[in-house]
C-alpha cells in the first residue's frame, strides 16, 4: 500500500485540477487548474521511474564485486518529465498571455462575463 502512495498523491493532484477547472470561472484560476493537472501527471511519470535500491545507470559507477544483478533505474522517465515540464511552461505562458490580453480588452477575468462567442 505504502508503495502506491506516490500514485495516489498524483491522482489527488489531477482530481484537484479537474475540480478547479469545473468550478472556477476566473481565467487565472483555470490556468492554475491546468498546471495542477500537469504537475500531477509529471509527478506520476517521475515516480514510475523509481526502483527500490536501484543505482544510477552509469556502468563505471555501478558497485563492483557485489551481486551482478543490481537493479538500475532507467533514465527515460526523468528525461520524459523534463521534456514535459518544458512543454508545460510554454503552454502555460501562452495561456496566461491570452488571459492578460482578455483582461486588457474587457477589464475582467470572469469567464462568465466575457463570452462574446456563443452558440
Amino acid at each position, binding site marked *: 500500500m505504502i508503495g502506491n502512495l506516490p500514485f495516489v498523491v498524483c491522482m489527488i493532484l489531477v482530481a484537484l485540477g479537474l475540480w478547479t477547472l469545473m468550478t472556477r470561472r476566473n481565467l487565472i484560476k483555470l490556468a492554475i487548474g491546468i498546471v495542477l493537472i500537469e504537475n500531477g501527471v509529471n509527478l506520476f511519470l517521475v515516480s514510475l521511474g523509481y526502483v527500490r535500491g536501484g543505482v544510477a545507470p552509469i556502468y563505471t559507477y555501478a558497485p563492483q564485486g557485489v551481486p551482478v544483478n543490481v537493479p538500475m533505474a532507467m533514465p527515460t522517465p526523468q528525461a520524459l518529465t523534463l521534456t514535459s515540464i518544458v512543454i508545460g511552461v510554454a503552454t502555460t505562458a501562452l495561456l496566461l498571455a491570452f488571459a492578460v490580453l482578455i483582461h486588457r*480588452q474587457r477589464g475582467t477575468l470572469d469567464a462568465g462575463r466575457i463570452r462574446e462567442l456563443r452558440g
Partner: protein
Amino acid sequence: MSLAMHVPILAIAVPLLGAFALPLMAKVHHRLRDLWALVVGAFTVAMIVTLAVQVFTVGVQVYTLGADTPDATLGPQGFPIRITLVADAMGAFMALISALLGGAALIYALGFLEESKGKTLSMSLFLLLWAGMLGLKLTGDMFNFFVFLELTSVAACGLIGYRAWESRPPEAAFKTLVMFILGGLMVLLAVAILYGEYGALNMAFLSAQIGGSLLDRVALGLLLGGLLMKAGAVPMHMWAPDAYGEADANTAIVLVANTQAGLYALFRVVFTLYGGAATPEVGYLVTTLGALTVLVAVLMAVVQTNLGRLVAYGAISQIGYMLLAAGVGLVTLGVGPEFGRVALQGGVFHMFNDAACIGLLFLCVGAVRRAAGSGDLRSLGGLAHTEKWTSGFFLLGALALAGIPPLNGFASKLMIYQSVFQLSPILTALAVLASILLLAVFVRAFQGAFLGPRQSMSGAPLSPAMLAGMAVLAVVVIAFGLVPDLVVRHLVAPAAEALWTGRDVYLAAVLGG
C-alpha cells in the same frame, strides 16, 4: 548516403527550420520572407510527395533517429530503444492531405494577410503547425507523439489568437488552448501508464504487448478522450466553432488539417496500437459519437448568422461522418465482413474530400470578409454581382460538402451510406437526413450572401494569390469527383488497408521478422 534515404525526417525538419528562420528573413526584407516561405513550402510538399511515392510503391518506410543506419530500429539487445519514424500508407495519405491544405493555405496567405497585421507572425506559426502535424503523422514513438501533439496545440492556438488588437481572437484561443492542453495531458497520462506497464514507448513494440488488461483499457479511454478533444467530436466540440470562426481563412483550413491529424492519431491508436486487443464496444462508442457529431453540428449550423461559424459547424459535422465510418470499421475489425472494409475506405476517402471542399469554403469565407468587410449573413447580399469567382467556388464547395454528384463529397459519402446501412439502417437514415439539412443550410447561406440586389462594398478587391489558393482546392474537388475509382484504387484503398489489415505489416517493419 543519399538524400532520398532521409526523406521522412526532412519532411519534418524543413518546415521546422523554415518557421524559426522566417522572422529573421522578414528582418531583411518582406519579399525575401515571402520567397523563403514559398521555397520552404515547395520543398516540404516535394518531400511529402516523394515519401508518399516511396510508401505507395515500395511499402512501409521506417527511419530511426540517431542510429548508424536509418533502418536499424532495434538496439543491441533487440529492443527498440530509439525514436522511430514510421510512414505507412495511412500516414503518407494524411501527409498528402496536409500537403494539399498547407500548400493552398500558403499561396492564399501571401495575398490575403496584411503586412501591418502580423503577416510574419502568422506565416511562421503556420510553418510550425505544419511541421507539428507532419511529425504527428509520421512518428512511431508514443512520447514523440505527445510532443508533436503539444507542438500543434501551441502553434494552432498562437495562430488563432495572434491578432491581439481584436477582442475576440484571444478569447477563442484561450478556450481552445484549455481544451488542447487538457487533451494533451490525458494523452501524456496514458503514455505514462503504458510505459509503466511495458517499459517501452515504441508504438509497434507496445502494440505487440498490449493484451487488454484493466490498465490498458484505462489508457485507451484516456487516449480516446484526449484525441477526440483534439478532433472536435461532439461532446468536446465547444472550442471548434470559435476557433474556426475567429481565425483567418488561411489559418482555418490548416486547423481543418489539424483536427484531421487528431482524427488520424485516434485511428492509429484504435487500429494499430490496440488492434490486437480490439473489442466491438469501442467501435460502437466511436460510431455513436460520430452519429451524434453529425446531428448536433448540422442542427447548430441551421441557427448560425455568421458565415464563418456556419462553415465551422459544417466542418465539425464532416468529422462526424469520418468517425461514423471508422466506428463501423472498428466494430467489424477482426470479424472481417466486406462492408467494414468499405466503411473504412469511405471514411478515409472522405478525409481527403472534406479537406478539399471545407478548405475551399473557408477560403471563400475569407474572400467574402475581404470583399464585404464582414461575415454577417444579416447584412451581406448581392456579392455575386462583383465576386463571380468567389461565388462559383462557394457554390462548388457547398454542393460537394452536401454530397451532390458528380463532386467528390458524393463519392465518399455514398461509400459511407452503403456500408453503414449494413450495420444499422437508422444510422444511414440519420446521415442522409443530416446531409440534406446541410445542403439546405448552405443554399440559404449562398442565397443570403451572394444573391440579391447589388450592395455597396466597403472592402478591398481580391488578389490573384487568393484566387490561386482557391483554384488549387477547386481542381481537387472536381477531379476527385470525376475519377473516384482511380483515387480509391491507388490512394484510398492502400491507406484503408493499412488500418484494416496493415497492423502486422507495420509491426514487422519496425520489429523485424
